[in-house]
């Protein structure tokens, strides 16, 4: 079974802090994704990566950056956390080359910024 793990289930940070959310997948998938999930809005794509050291902006990249130094690891960085970034963050991976479908999701990190 594909396993996608996220470094924390719950995280509380202060406004202005730099925040790192880590995601690791164990199935040698090429593609990795970061979403945020908010009630009534579904999942919105922040950034994605089709290969190591590659990244592409999703629909809501403002205030975020990403890093993919190794194939199995995809990090989401909040350079200066703000209260409007309080949300559930979901990482996903998929194996189809440059294809986003049939994604496998991690359990999510619920981030609260105070």
């Amino acid at each position, binding site marked *: 079974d594909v396993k*996608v793990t996220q470094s924390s289930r719950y995280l509380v940070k202060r406004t202005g802090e730099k925040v790192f959310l880590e995601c690791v997948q164990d199935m040698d998938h090429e593609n990795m994704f970061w979403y945020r999930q908010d009630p009534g809005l*579904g999942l919105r794509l922040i950034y994605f990566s089709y290969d190591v050291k590659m990244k592409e902006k999703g629909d809501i990249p403002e205030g975020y950056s990403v890093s993919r130094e190794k194939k199995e690891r995809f990090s989401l960085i909040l350079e200066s956390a703000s209260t409007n970034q309080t949300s559930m963050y979901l990482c*996903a991976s998929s194996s189809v080359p440059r294809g*986003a*479908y*049939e*994604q496998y*999701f991690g*359990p*999510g990190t619920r981030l609260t910024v105070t």
Partner: protein
Amino acid sequence: AQSVTQLDSQVPVFEEAPVELRCNYSSSVSVYLFWYVQYPNQGLQLLLKYLSGSTLVKGINGFEAEFNKSQTSFHLRKPSVHISDTAEYFCAVTPRGGKLIFGQGTELSVKP
């Protein structure tokens, strides 16, 4: 551009009753369609998918969905729900080779 609309934000239903969760999409190109389920405090898992072929797709846990190209719909159905089906359900679409676009989600609440 593609978009997905889930027509009901919440669906309450009694145990053993049938249920339909509605999903409509818009796209100018051919798409692949998915339903994902999110149980409380968990990530999403794939319930079923339509890529091509038969328009009636069967998934896990007794769910099925029907792709209707003329109505641009992909409604999810189950003939008899259980308490354990209580979860949030997401419809998603992707143009072939593109990004997944999710609907807003439908909360299914199964009551005894």
